[in-house]
């Protein structure tokens, strides 16, 4: 069934979405200026990764961003302890230790995003290889017990 063209036309465009998001942030920023500043400022490493990320679905950004958010949550606690003011947020953002912390955790996220899939692939490949060996061993046992005749593949060439 084809989609209703009118409905499709009513869907908000990407540009509109960004404007709405910006307005939402500005509104929240107006209500919670300290938190907003700290979050926007603290998520800069994620933004950088987002700009560099060429993977489909921005999976590296999600990983690094999650780690960035994890680190930011500690800063937010600091902010809450200092009264959630804009000054407190500026003070935290001005502290290079905190920046180092943010960048280190985000970098770790980026590192994990780069190495973990390769590791997983390696593990799975090794597991498959082991499985293939077991299959071949079992096949060899079957051939030894029942003869080459069982390797006849119907209507197909025998695999090399």
């Amino acid at each position, binding site marked *: 069934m084809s989609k209703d063209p009118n409905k499709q036309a009513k869907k908000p465009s990407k540009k509109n979405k960004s404007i709405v998001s910006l307005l939402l942030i500005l509104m929240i920023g107006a209500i919670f200026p300290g938190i907003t500043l700290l979050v926007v400022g603290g998520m800069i490493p994620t933004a950088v990764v987002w700009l560099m990320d060429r993977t489909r679905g921005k*999976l590296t950004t*999600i990983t690094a961003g999650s780690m960035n958010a994890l680190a930011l949550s500690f800063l937010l606690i600091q902010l809450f302890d200092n009264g959630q003011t804009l000054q407190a947020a500026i003070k935290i953002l001005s502290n290079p230790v905190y920046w180092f912390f943010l960048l280190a955790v985000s970098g770790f996220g980026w590192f994990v995003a780069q190495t973990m899939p390769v590791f997983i692939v390696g593990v799975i490949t090794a597991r498959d290889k082991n499985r293939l060996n077991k299959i071949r061993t079992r096949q060899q046992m079957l051939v030894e017990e029942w003869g080459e005749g069982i390797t006849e593949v119907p209507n197909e060439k025998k695999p090399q």
Partner: protein
Amino acid sequence: MADQTAAKQAAPAGKNERISVCGGRYEVFLGNPLPHFSSPGTRAYAAQGTRGHGSALALIVENGEFPRFEILGNAVNINSPYVCKFLEYDVVYWADIGQHVPVLIYERPGGPRLMEKLTDDRPPLNSEVHFRQLLESMSDGIRDIYLAGTNHGRINPTNLFTRDASSATVQIGDYIATAPCKYQHPAYCTIELAMSHPLSRGPASASDDIYAIGVTLMHMIFGKLPMVNMAVEDIIKAKIEKGSLMALSGGLRIPSAYSEILRGLLADDVSQRWALDDIAYWLGGRRMGSKPGAQNGKAQRAFEIGGASYNNVRLLAHAMTKHPDAAAKSIEDGSLDRWLRRSLGNEDLAGAVAEAVASAASTQRGGSPAERAVTRTTITMDPSGPIRFRDISSMPQGLGALLVDTLAQGKSPRNIADFIAAQFILHWGNSQNLVGEYASIMQTYEGQRMLLDRPQPGFGIERVAYELSPGTPCLSPMVVSAFPLTLKSMMVALEAYASTVEAGDTRSDPIDRHIAAFILSRHRRMNDRVFPMLAAGTNAGQKALATLTVLAEMQRKYHTEPLPHLAEWVARMLAPSMDRFHNKILRERVTRDINKLAKRGDISGMLSVMDDGSTQKKDDEGYNAAHKEWLILEKAARELTTNTEVRDKALLRQGRQVTAFVAALLGIIAVVITAFIKMV
């Protein structure tokens, strides 16, 4: 009847050496040969019954001779004072001959032969009393043989034994030891038999024996028979041209007292020849009178063939078979037809010949069209004569003996095969006056023709030989020296041969064409469907299984004793047959069992192991399951080994997704914990 399977070993002949035969009922004295009782194809030795049978005569049949075993059942029932009493037979190893030979045990004749040689002269028989005694004893003897269901075929003075010195009463000698009529002198043969090859004269008819009685009487009356010194062709020519009576007398005057009976006994026309009852009437004093024999028409002008001229149609037919090319030409160019119509004046015969030539063309097999035309023409011209084709000149019932001799000598049976394939006997039967009388033999040969058409082991020319000559031993080179007449004795002989076969010996398989044909001819209920698999070139495994099936049936039915050598030979052959079992462990177990049974000589047991249906079914099921499993594994293996690059990319992406998911989860948990802390 003696069990001939228990072949004995005769030690080299010493003076007092004796061997026990026929289950110990007779002893043959090797050091006491009786050459004056020997006949062509046999050696006579003194023998004695161990249970009071008195003095007996053992006829040792020479190598290459095939006794008429099919009539032994009839012969043993003959209890006539005028026929040498046949007692028993056996097959024994004869050291001088170097192989097993048949031994026929007879009661020893009371006196010597009437004549040692047919060419000898003897005093003429002048006494009418003696003449009557001689005639009566011979005709009574022939009657007794006839009543027992057979005929003699070799009545002549060398095969008649005087009973006592005072009378001319005789005893008729052996007629079993060799092929029927084989050693009958052509002078004593009717024209038809004289024209036939000695081996293929077939069993004599009562009428043929009566003719031989007539010749014997004439020989005795004159004390000599000039014809015995003549060549066969001259004998035939003289008998046809002059008639047997005149030809045999050789110009000598026949005493008037005997002229009537001799004319009756020596009539060339079978329908005019006296029967045994006529002889009895004559001896009783009734005068029969003899009708003159139907003379073959004499042509006004002679027909020339092979450089000789012939006025007589029967002689011409005989000559045509000697010169087949010229005969074929005369048929083709119509000169024979013209001669038959114009010179002989026999339109019917000319028409019959034309039909015969046409029928020769319609038959597709058995020699060239010209050869077939000549043979069919000569059958039509001389229907009572033998069938003549290439080097064969055979009465229909004599072809079996000729074929057996041909095969036994290792000669090519091609001519005989063509002879049967060309359906000459069908034409011969249809050419007779009383076709119905020959329906049985025509049917027999049609059956043989069909056997000949099947080239597989168990059929073909070998089978035809055993079917036509039921008393023939198995002629396989592996067993022929044991002269096996029965399937049981054949199995014993095969076991003995198998003991000489080493592993890797490829001289022969246990069942060659002769053995296969012998089995099928002797065991009618044998399943012949396995026999084609015995052919050369068949898959070795199938051949071995077919061999095992046949030999197991033989052992089960005819020889229950162990046959270890034969079994081990078959076990060796069975190696390729083990492929029928897929499972290696099962195969090893079956091989072990087969070898164990082979050592015990249990061929039937070996077949049971090889042919066990439930084992086979389980093995097949296991094989199918293994095959299915292998395919599933192969599919899985292929999935693991194909498109690795794509798979790796997909895996990488999946890894990233998992990593992102876990990281996001940690992030959310951290935010939630932060919020929670703050709220608390």
